[in-house]
């Protein structure tokens, strides 16, 4: 049984499709040589063609085309050897040409797929309908002057890939997982940095609801939902709104809605009747984009190992659980970090330390894998000290915290603080004998069947050894002496 929302008339299924606008990572714009750096002073990255000066003509940026092909291949999609740029005509102050150069009925990339890694370790395949290249618009600034709007054209003409999913998504969690996975793939490919906060990835969400087994009902499109959390909220709100509407006897109208992040609700932007007629037609300034099998093959040969393959390899070669493997491959840098730690060591132990203490420390400190508080080599050395029984798991955690604090190697810390694990059986047996001698009543209770007291004895022995006794040896020896 999948995700559903309860209504008065029964359960409702959600049907969700996403359109993701991903900014192509490239030095210059889709049709001009202007730079694309984020955060530059307004209107300093504008070529004549970006400002739509009379007589200026677009020239396709071959690198952006390559990035789109790379992305298509990463999505296991069909690359269309002929694609056509079309003009999408509408007036807006930050759209200098009065049209956006996009692709309409002949996109560069056709059908593909994204495999979602769900939290329970299961996977779901979401179809990709298409990917096309298009120009971004500029930015209208309405807060600079009491009665005027200002325009910043730095972003105008920047290359975007619009990636359209099939309506295969059935829950807010799947939508979030889809965006997360897509972002991961794009980052692996280096075709988009996936930075939602800087607007390099923006989402439009199509939502409809239906009763199980029904055909699709009317959908609403929610524009510019720009974080994974908001995607969650917007879908939940919108689905509930539609269910309430149906159950009150109303009808959902096809329309474009806006997500208000402050209020957590969607609002109507324009109805179907008010929808723009974009008057698409092939851009006569640009020739059809023709690709050869050789060009496509050349790009394919440069693709990195992608998350799905990497995950499969981690499961096969390192015997990791699908969940752990999924977590590790989400970012190329994490996967690389893990592999450095795991090299020549117990992969399961390495995985536990990377996903556990190490990721925990990153979160706590707000650091990234690229800028880690503990290097992969040092973490590997720590794992070695666990493997050779120098450190117990507990001690290792202590050492790890000290590594984070001091930046020192685990060997240095172990040496300085004398944190070496006690594995001398004589020493351990001695400590056990003392503990048993000091607690004769508890020993008697234990022997009379109060098994729970075992933990008490372990704790006392560890206390007596300053936490350094090897826990497994303590366990074994205690059992013998209490028997």
């Amino acid at each position, binding site marked *: 049984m999948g995700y559903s929302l309860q209504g008065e008339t029964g359960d409702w299924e959600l049907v969700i499709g996403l359109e993701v606008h991903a900014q192509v990572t490239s030095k210059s714009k889709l049709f001009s040589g202007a730079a694309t750096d984020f955060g530059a002073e307004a209107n300093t990255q504008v070529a004549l063609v970006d400002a739509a000066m*009379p*007589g200026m*003509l677009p020239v396709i940026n071959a690198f952006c085309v390559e990035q789109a092909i790379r992305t298509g291949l990463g999505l296991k999609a069909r690359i269309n050897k002929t694609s056509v740029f079309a003009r999408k005509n509408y007036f807006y102050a930050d759209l200098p*040409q*009065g*049209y956006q150069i996009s692709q309409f009925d002949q996109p560069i990339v056709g059908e593909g797929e994204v495999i979602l890694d769900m939290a329970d370790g299961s996977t779901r395949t979401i179809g990709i309908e298409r990917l096309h290249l298009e120009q971004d618009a500029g930015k209208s600034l309405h807060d600079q002057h009491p009665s005027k709007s200002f325009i910043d054209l730095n972003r105008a003409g920047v290359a975007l890939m619009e990636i359209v999913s099939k309506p295969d998504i059935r829950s807010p969690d799947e939508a979030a997982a889809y965006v997360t996975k897509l972002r991961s793939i794009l980052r692996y490919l280096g075709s988009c940095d996936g930075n939602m906060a800087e607007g390099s990835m923006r989402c439009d969400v199509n939502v409809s609801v239906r009763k199980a087994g029904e055909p699709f009902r009317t959908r609403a499109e929610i524009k510019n939902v720009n974080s994974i959390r908001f995607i969650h909220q917007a879908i939940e709100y919108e689905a509930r709104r539609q269910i309430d509407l149906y159950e009150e006897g109303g009808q959902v109208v096809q329309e474009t809605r806006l997500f208000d992040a402050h209020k957590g609700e969607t609002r109507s932007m324009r109805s179907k009747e008010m929808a723009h*007629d974009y*008057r698409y*037609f092939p851009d006569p300034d640009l020739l059809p984009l023709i690709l050869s099998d050789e060009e496509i093959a050349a790009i394919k040969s440069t693709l990195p190992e992608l998350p799905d393959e990497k995950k499969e390899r981690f499961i096969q070669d390192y015997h990791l659980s699908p969940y752990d493997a999924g977590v590790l491959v989400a970012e190329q840098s994490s996967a690389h970090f893990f592999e450095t730690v795991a090299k020549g060591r117990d992969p399961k132990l390495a995985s536990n330390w990377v996903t556990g203490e190490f990721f925990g420390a990153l979160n706590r400190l707000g650091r990234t894998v690229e800028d880690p508080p503990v290097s992969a080599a040092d973490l590997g050395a720590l794992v070695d000290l666990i493997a050779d029984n120098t450190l117990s798991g507990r001690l290792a955690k202590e050492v790890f915290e000290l590594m984070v604090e001091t930046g020192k190697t685990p060997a240095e810390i172990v040496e300085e603080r004398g944190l070496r694990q006690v594995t001398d059986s004589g020493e351990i047996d001695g400590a056990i004998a003392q503990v048993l001698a000091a607690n004769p009543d508890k020993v008697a209770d234990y022997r009379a069947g109060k098994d729970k007291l075992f933990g008490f004895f372990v704790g006392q022995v560890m206390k007596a050894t300053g936490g350094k006794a090897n826990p497994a040896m303590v366990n074994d020896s205690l059992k013998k002496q209490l028997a």
Partner: protein
Amino acid sequence: MSALTDLTIADARAGLDKRDFTAMELTEAHLLAMDRARSLNAFITETPDLALERARDADAALAKGEGGTLAGIPLAIKDLFCTEGVRTTASSRILENFVPPYESTVTANLRRAGAVMLGKTSLDEFAMGSSNMTSAFGPVTSPWRRRSAPEIKLVPGGSSGGSAAAVAARISMGATGTDTGGSIRQPAAYCGIVGLKPTYGRCSRWGVVAFASSLDQAGPMTRSVKDAALMLGAMAGHDAKDSTSANLKVPDFAAALTGDIRGLKIGIPKEYRPAGLADEIARLWEDGIAMLKAAGALPVEISLPHTQYALAAYYIVAPAECSSNLARYDGVRFGKRVEGKTLDELYARSRAAGFGKEVRRRILIGSYVLSAGYYDAYYTKAQKVRSLIAEDFRLAFENVDVILTPTAPTPAFAMDEGDAADPVTMWLNDVFTVPASLAGLPGLSLPTGLSQDGLPLGLQLLGRPFDEETLLRVAGVMESAANFTALPPDREI
């Protein structure tokens, strides 16, 4: 009047080399002619100071033996070519005060060849028209007059009307034009000069204010075929900044004028002889055929069966592209702005004040044919017709080397006749020129005779894609045979 203004470009260039006169003298003579002929209203912006400066540079280059192919040659530039630091209006109020910070590739090429720009010539607003009556800066008067009624002002044709008038009136030795559906060839015919629309892609469109991008093509307007060859050689060439520009070497066009057309097959399309074609046009055409035959060429009747649909297809495709191309004139970044309370009001007011009637008409038609529900019936259908027309020509050129037709169905008409005409009647002027535009083929108009009323008439030669050389070769022979020496009476106003 100085004989300097009567010279062809080829003769003037030879004279400059021989130091018979200087580039300064040549330019000054033309600036004087410009002054005297100001009543024609051929120029929107005159640039005498710039012209003298460039003439001085040309003289310096010539003295060092480094003069380019057009060193010191005074030319007029259609005001659709963006010229750095010189106002470029497209004959529209909306660009009334627009000064581009860049130079079009074609005018940059001409400048590199040493040409001297005299000024920017008038045109139909955004090149939309066949009369030069739609210019926001007033109509241009043709230097020609009817024998029977010399007091009536005639149009120079359009859209490159200012350029045609300037060349015919001996204000400039040559001029640039642009041709979307006949805008070089028709005014050349009306004004008794040579006009060459090259193959689409031969000249860069970069920096030329766009009307209909898939059709627009720059070309020379001159008083001789050889001059057209010389000018085209300087204008043409691959330009990486225009994705539709052809990556081909520029041939020596003038070298193509061998005078020998023996054995060439000349296609005579029967569809270009509609019922009601004026007798004098039909006779002119027959005379042209006879000239080529006498020179050893073989006239062959051909059929271009889809010709009758060309005009309708053109008046869908061109407005469709124009409606989109002109969206950038919105009052936001440059050009005319009329403030409004809302953005939409600003758009509406700026564009209403900035665009003339014909431009507005074409934007409306273009928006209509591209809109949802009509796109397939109009735009898609028109594109299909366009393919069929191109295919007609392709098949015809399997059997013939060039095609000969009249350039326009009538001689130049009077200004008030243009005013009175409904738009469709106006558009019929393009009936013979539009098919080759849709097919992207090169076309050349040259004057071969006068109407009964003393007005120049032109014949059109059409060629294979990128075979301007054969076109020029045949035109050269026809030019000698026709020996068109008539001069416009208004030449020395």
